[in-house]
Every structure is written in structure tokens, then in C-alpha cells.
């Protein structure tokens, strides 16, 4: 075993930036030779419009260089395929390979978005069928798949509320209705999306039990300026808002509409429908509930589903069916407009439809049951070692805090980093903001009994370490190729791109 000299830098060492690997003259591609008579470039594009820098500093590498570069970097990532990825509110479930295959069928992959509708009937059928399924799952009839991610769907939903109220009340009266109510436990995207739609935000308190404070809601609704409420259900501490009917009633009575953030729909599919609860408009995250891959930060797809009453306000074009034909319908004068070029993140729609078809209606419900069961099992398994701030039984995710461990100096961040040493991706930390030292754990349905037990054991072991040897946590992780990075220094003097040595020195 000894005396082995490695001839190349091993993957456990730093892989250079591609720019540092670049060698003049290397290429990794081959195109067919130009088969038309070449004209002087200056005759096609005047010199003053041409690029002058000869693309200096762009990489020059071989195909093998490229493959090794990316494969090495890939090994530094944790991923769902490696193990449990219990990020709360993120629903990191298994991404089926079948869905990937579907998305790569050439008849979809090679299809131009501006194809005449009669030549893209299959593609439109996929959109239409997925719309129908999502309408059934949410109990909301109007569906647009155009938004590209959750926050984009939120913006769409809130703009629909605004357009509806403007149309209902008339410009003068509606101008007095510019308040969006948002619980203090909400995702940060909610207030940001409300702001984009021209609303000012008022925050609703949560009760000590972790629910929306109805009295505070009533008080805020009394002001007469409420356009709507943005509510996550189950909420971000993993609890089903049991008063959802009453909440919707209060907002409706005050002349507002209810928007539901569907980030947590994995707790509800096949079990309960937002439309039946009184919700007016919702966004879904196909990259959460419907298993399309997160891709290291997208692409997502954030469909917006709404009541019949709000349907005229959805983005155009709508994809509709007339007889046996699937059509693009642009004739929606009340529409908020287009939120994205073309029709949305189509490749994600293919994967989501494949997910729904693979599971079937009973399978969708079973997935929900397993997701909730797994979270409940973790809640049960960790309550002896970690502070659980809310008593109510959690749905698909459960929140704990670092209250007990913090006494010895080990905080949520340290627990999360130590969990990496045990081979797990950490949970969501310090969210929701209303829970001090929050650890939000969402196992999803994609982990089995054995792995849940391993996770619980790891968390308990960390709790013991926190009591006996907190230093171990403070310096974690110990097993990764780099340790904790100095993020404060990185933000103070940001280096956001590579520069060639000489220029970097000069700058």
C-alpha cells in the first residue's frame, strides 16, 4: 500500500479552475468544414461591429480535460442519489430516471417553441394534460404552467389578485386596497413577490402553538385595505393550519383573496385540496412535489392554479382544447400578461407528467402518506434529545431547535456541519425566522425505515457530542475536502470571477 506516487492530481486535491488548465491551441470540438463560399468577414459585418479581443482568456481545453474537470468537481457535491437530503421546505425526493428519459425524447427536445400549433400537438397535449391533473390535485380549475419557479408563480398569483381587485373595485376604490398580509413564518419570496406586484406588506403574528394568530388576522383585516393573504399550508413549521376555512372566511369577508404558497404540497397531494379549503390561488413547485430535479438551483417550474373566477387573469397564452385540437389562446383581455417568453420550463412539465403517470392516483396518495409518516417518525425519534418548540403533530416536516445544545455552546450551524460528518446533508437551518435556532427537517417519502433510523442515531450522537465535547461540533465538518469558509471575508471583498494573473495583480 505504501510508496504509491500519484501521477496526476487526485480528485481529493483541488481541481483548478478551467482557466488555470487552459493551454493555447487545445480544442475539444470538431465542426464540419464550412461548405459555402467564404466571403471576407468585413463584407458581412463591418469591422467596427466586430469583436476585437480574439476571445482572449476563454478556455482552450481538450474533451478529456472537460470530462475530468467536471467529473472531479461533481464528486465534491452531496446529492439525493448519495443519500438522505432532509432540507425542510425543499422536498428533496428521488428524481426518477424515467422522467429524464421522457424529457430527452427527440420529438420534444428538438421542438422549436414557435412551431405552428398544428405541428406541435403532442407538446401541447402534454401541457394540457398536466394542467388538468394539477387542477384535480389542487381543486382549482384555472392552471398556467408558464411561471419558471416558485417565486415566479408567487408573483403571478399575487399579480392575478391585484388584477382581479382592480377589475372588481375599479381603479379608484382598488387603490385603497394595497396591503398584502403575510405571516411572520413565511418564505422570504412571499414579501418580495408582493412588493413586485405593488403591495405593501403587513406581517401577521404566529401563536405560541405555531399557527396563524386569528385575532391578529381579524384586527389587520379590519383596516379595510387588505387585498389578500399569502399563506403557506402546511405552514413553515410543518403544521396544518387547522383553521384554514375560518382564515379564508375572514379574508374573504374583508374583501381580500387568499393566496397559498404551495411549497409544502407534498403533505397534501391526494389527501386534501386547497380549493376545498377556500384558497383562491396557489403556486406549485414541480421541482419539489412533482419530483423534477433541483439541478443545483434550478430549473424549477412554478405553475399557478386558481379558481374559475380568477381564470381570466392568468398569463397568456393559455393552452386549451377544442374538439381534438390543442390550441394556444391569446384572447384573454383581462390577463396580467406574459410572465416568460414561450410557455414556461417545458422540460419540467414532461417530467412532472411522467411522475403523475408513474405513481397513479393511489401512488400519489401513498407518497404523501409516506412523506408524513417519515417526518412523524423523525419527530418521535428526536424529541428526547432536541427541543421541539411546537406540540402539534407535524405533517411532512418537523422543526426542532438548538435550545438544549446551545447551553454548551453548540448551535444549529454546528449541529448541521457535524451532520455532514455522519454522511447526511444538513436540514434547513435558521428557517423559519420565528423559531430561534430552527432546524427544519423534511425527509420526504424517498427514505426507508433503515435510513431514518440512521439519521436519528446520527442526530442523537451529535446531541451527546454537544454535551460532552462541543468543540467537535464547532470545528465540524472534519471529513470534507475543505472546512468552513470565511463567508464574511468573501462578502467584504467579493471576488466574483476569475481574472488572468497579470490583470488580477494590476486590479
Amino acid at each position, binding site marked *: 500500500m505504501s510508496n504509491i506516487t500519484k501521477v496526476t492530481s487526485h480528485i481529493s486535491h483541488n*481541481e483548478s479552475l478551467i482557466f488555470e488548465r487552459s493551454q493555447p491551441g487545445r480544442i*475539444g470540438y470538431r465542426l464540419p468544414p464550412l461548405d459555402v463560399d467564404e466571403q471576407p468577414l468585413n463584407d458581412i459585418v463591418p469591422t467596427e461591429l466586430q469583436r476585437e479581443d480574439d476571445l482572449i482568456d476563454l478556455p482552450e481545453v481538450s474533451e478529456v480535460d472537460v470530462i475530468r474537470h467536471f467529473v472531479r468537481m461533481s464528486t465534491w457535491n452531496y446529492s439525493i442519489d448519495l443519500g438522505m437530503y432532509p432540507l425542510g421546505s425543499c422536498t428533496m425526493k428521488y428524481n426518477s430516471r424515467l422522467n429524464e428519459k421522457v424529457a430527452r425524447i427527440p420529438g420534444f427536445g428538438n421542438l422549436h417553441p414557435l412551431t405552428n400549433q398544428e405541428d406541435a400537438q403532442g407538446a401541447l397535449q402534454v401541457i394540457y394534460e398536466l394542467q388538468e391533473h394539477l387542477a384535480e390535485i389542487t381543486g382549482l380549475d384555472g392552471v398556467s404552467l408558464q411561471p419558471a419557479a416558485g417565486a415566479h408563480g408567487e408573483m403571478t398569483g399575487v399579480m392575478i389578485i391585484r388584477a382581479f381587485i382592480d377589475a372588481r373595485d375599479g381603479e379608484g376604490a382598488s387603490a385603497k386596497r394595497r396591503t398584502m398580509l403575510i405571516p411572520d413564518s413565511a418564505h422570504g*419570496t412571499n414579501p418580495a413577490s408582493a412588493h413586485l406586484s405593488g403591495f405593501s406588506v403587513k406581517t401577521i403574528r404566529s401563536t405560541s402553538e405555531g399557527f396563524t394568530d386569528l385575532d391578529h388576522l381579524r384586527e389587520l383585516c379590519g383596516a379595510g385595505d387588505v387585498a389578500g393573504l399569502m399563506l403557506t399550508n402546511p405552514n413553515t413549521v410543518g*403544521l396544518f393550519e387547522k383553521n384554514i376555512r375560518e382564515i379564508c372566511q375572514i379574508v374573504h369577508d374583508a374583501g381580500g383573496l387568499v393566496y397559498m404558497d404551495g411549497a409544502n404540497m407534498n403533505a397534501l397531494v391526494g389527501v386534501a385540496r386547497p380549493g376545498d379549503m377556500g384558497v383562491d390561488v396557489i403556486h406549485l413547485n414541480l421541482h419539489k412535489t412533482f419530483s423534477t430535479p433541483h439541478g443545483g438551483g434550478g430549473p424549477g417550474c412554478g405553475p399557478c392554479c386558481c379558481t374559475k373566477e380568477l381564470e381570466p387573469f392568468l398569463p397568456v397564452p393559455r393552452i386549451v382544447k377544442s374538439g381534438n385540437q390543442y390550441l394556444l389562446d391569446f384572447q384573454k383581455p383581462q390577463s396580467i*400578461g406574459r410572465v416568460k417568453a414561450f410557455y414556461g420550463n417545458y422540460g419540467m412539465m414532461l417530467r412532472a407528467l*411522467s411522475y403523475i403517470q408513474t405513481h397513479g392516483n393511489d401512488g400519489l396518495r401513498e407518497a404523501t402518506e409516506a412523506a408524513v409518516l417519515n417526518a412523524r417518525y423523525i419527530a418521535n425519534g428526536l424529541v428526547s434529545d432536541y427541543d421541539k418548540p411546537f406540540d402539534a403533530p407535524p405533517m411532512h416536516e418537523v422543526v426542532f431547535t438548538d435550545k438544549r445544545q446551545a447551553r454548551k455552546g453548540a448551535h444549529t450551524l454546528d449541529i448541521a456541519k457535524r451532520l455532514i460528518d455522519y454522511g447526511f446533508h444538513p436540514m434547513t437551518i435558521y428557517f423559519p425566522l420565528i423559531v430561534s435556532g430552527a432546524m427544519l427537517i423534511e425527509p420526504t417519502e424517498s427514505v426507508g425505515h433503515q435510513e431514518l433510523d440512521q439519521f436519528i442515531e446520527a442526530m442523537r450522537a451529535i446531541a451527546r457530542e454537544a454535551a460532552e465535547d462541543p468543540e467537535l461540533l464547532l470545528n465540524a465538518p472534519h471529513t470534507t475536502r475543505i472546512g468552513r469558509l470565511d463567508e464574511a471575508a468573501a462578502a467584504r471583498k467579493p471576488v466574483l470571477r476569475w481574472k488572468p494573473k497579470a490583470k488580477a495583480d494590476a486590479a
Partner: protein
Amino acid sequence: MLKQIGLNSAADLFSSIPEELRLQRPLNTPAALSELELLNGFERMADANTSAKRTSFVGAGAYSHYIPTVVDHILSRSEFFTAYTPYQPEISQGTLQVIFEFQTLVCQLTGMEVANASMYDGSTALAEAVLMAERVTKRSKVIACGAVHPEYLEVVRTYVQHAGIDFEHVDFDNKTGRTASALDEVLDDKTAAIVVQSPNFFGCIEDVSALAEQAHAVGALLIVTVTEAASLALLKSPGACGADIVVAEGQSFGVPLSFGGPYVGLFATREKYARQMPGRLVGEAYDKQGRRGFVLTLATREQHIKREKATSNICTNEGLIALAATVYLETMGRRGLQEVGQQCAQKTAYAIKQISALSGFSLPFSAPRFNEFVISAPLVATELLSKLAIQHNIDGGLALSRYFKDRPNDILICVTETNTRAEIDSLAQGFNSLVNR
């Protein structure tokens, strides 16, 4: 497991949902399909997309380019595609370094100083650029000039409708196809930004440097939007022309057409505006042992910290597609990108020569072009293109009447390195046979 947590049935898991809200019937969605059945179903639907098998000359914001085989292989590594946003840098260095390289490549190509980790697509990136120009200048008028992609304009209008921004549009010049001189009349010291697309929607290359001067003379920013990113390798970079914000659709960099998405928006600007940017940024950082790594940085701009005061509501972006673009750009490299640019320009020039020589066909615009051009046909474009598709199995371009009702005979044609001379000749012959029989 149910017993271990003190429950008797799966239904008990949902006891916190009021009984009357629980769905008492199975979902009315299809029963489960096997892999074979499912694939057959999707293959049947794919077959109904008759256009996907034709030779195509359609561009207009989505382009057919050669995609090296390695791109999809790297994307298919589950370490990349099944990872989340890199919030835990110790176990996300792969994704983080890729984004750092992506940001660098976007800066190099656009000629700008900083770039973010991606936006949803070109159209939403443009909308975010308009919102950013308002933040930077504290002015509220934005003027889009010339032939900007009509769907991009629609998206911007949606985004700014409640932002107190006065979004105006100055039309193109009917002879050149470029920005009209009428711009002078609306440009004033209340203007936050001029928006120009180059090459523009008609394929015409704009005089970006002159527009930058005009914008800067009144203290406004110049936003340049690019739908055909392959042009960046050949044309003077927007940064070199004086742009303040550059946004682009990155689909040309190794991303399949896929009926319009997912694509990837590129967003770049000057260093002094970095803290006004939307979206995620990755920066260099070091651990205690001095080892280099990468982290998400300048997060105080973002929604999870600033909430309604954030620079944007964007969270999930297009990470995996940014990876595709990065693999593409590094595989093609300096010389490959130049060759793609050259071949596009040469083949397009050839196509222009062949088609404009046909009796009855003419070029309505005089400005120089990269890989798209408008041709005026002697017949109604939709009918001509439909016959061409049926009789010659060619999608000959986009009928401009889709967006411009007053241009019934105009066709926007795109030629890339994937189109052979034989295909271009077939296109010209097809047009000729349908018109000059």
C-alpha cells in the same frame, strides 16, 4: 412504523386536517402506468410533433446549434442534477465552482465585470434589468428601442406594471431595420435606461456604441439584450460598446430547444452596480487552512434576508442549465465559439444571396446581420411556409405576422452552423418552386 409512533392507520397521520377538508375519494387522475406503457404514450405524443423532424430555419429567440455529446453526459451526473442550491458549501463545491466559472465566462463574453448565477431566461432577465436600472438611477422612464423580441417586451410590461415605471417603445426604422432616430425625441434626463437588442429581432446588428453614448449623455444606463448568444463570439461585446447592463438568453450554449424551456438567462453588469443585482452570486472564499473554495455571497441583496426590500424575488434559478452552458462553452472553447460565429455569419450570408436573388423576394432591411434576416415574399408568409413544410419538409422560418400584423409577407429566417449548404439550397429551391411556377 405507524405502531412505533402510536398510530393505527395511515389515515391517522392526517388527523390534524379537519375531517370535512379531507378528500374522501381517490384523485381523478390516471392509474399507475408501467415504464413500457408510459414511454409508449410519450413517444406517441412526441410523434404528433411533426415539426421536430423537419429541417428548420426558425430562430427568433430559440436556436438550433450543435451540442457536443459531453454536455448531456455531464448534466446527467446525478451529483449535479440531484443536488440542491449550494447552501452548504463544504458539500457543494462542485456546483459552486461551476457557477464561478459560469460567471467568469459570462463576463468574458459580454465584456462586463460581474455576472450572476443565472436568471430564468432572457426575457425575465431583461425585466429584472429594467427594474434594476430604476433602482440604480432613481429615475422611472425606460425606453425600449427598435426591434426587441416582442415576447420580451410583453414580459417586461408585466413585470413593471406595478413598479411605477413608464415603459416606452420607440419603433424601428423601416429602411434599416435598426433603431429609429425618433429615439432623440423621447430621451431626456428622466430616462433611467435605453433597452436595445442586438442583433435585434430582425437579425439586424444595432449600433450599440452610439446608443451607449446617447444614453450616457442624459445620465441614463444602456441595457443590451441578446437573444442569440452565439453572436457574442463574433460581434463587438456589449461591454466594449459601453453597455451598463447586459442580459442574454443562453439557450444557444448547449441547451436543446425543448419547446421553449428550460433555458438560462445571463445577467451581467458593471462592478459598481454589483450590490444592485438580482439573483445569486458565487464568490471565492478560504477556509482556516487557507484552502480555496467558493460560497454564495452578497446574500444581503436577496429575498431570504431582505424580504420585501430585496433586489428581486428570485430564488430557484436555472442552475443545471447554467451547468450546460458552462460545459458547452468550455468544450467549444475559444476557437470553437469563434468557428460557430464564423459559420453562422458565412452560411447566413450565403442564404441571403440565394434567397434574395429569387424572383419576387426582397430584403426589406439594409442593416448588417449575423445569423437571421427578414425576407419579403411575394405570397402570404403563413401560406408559403405551410406549403414548404408539407411539400418540402422544411420549416422555412417564422412568419412575422405572428407578432407584426402589418407584415403579412415577411419571413424571419435563421441559419446556423447546423444547416448545410444543401439544406439552404433546398430552402431556396423550395421557395422558388412554390412562388415561380
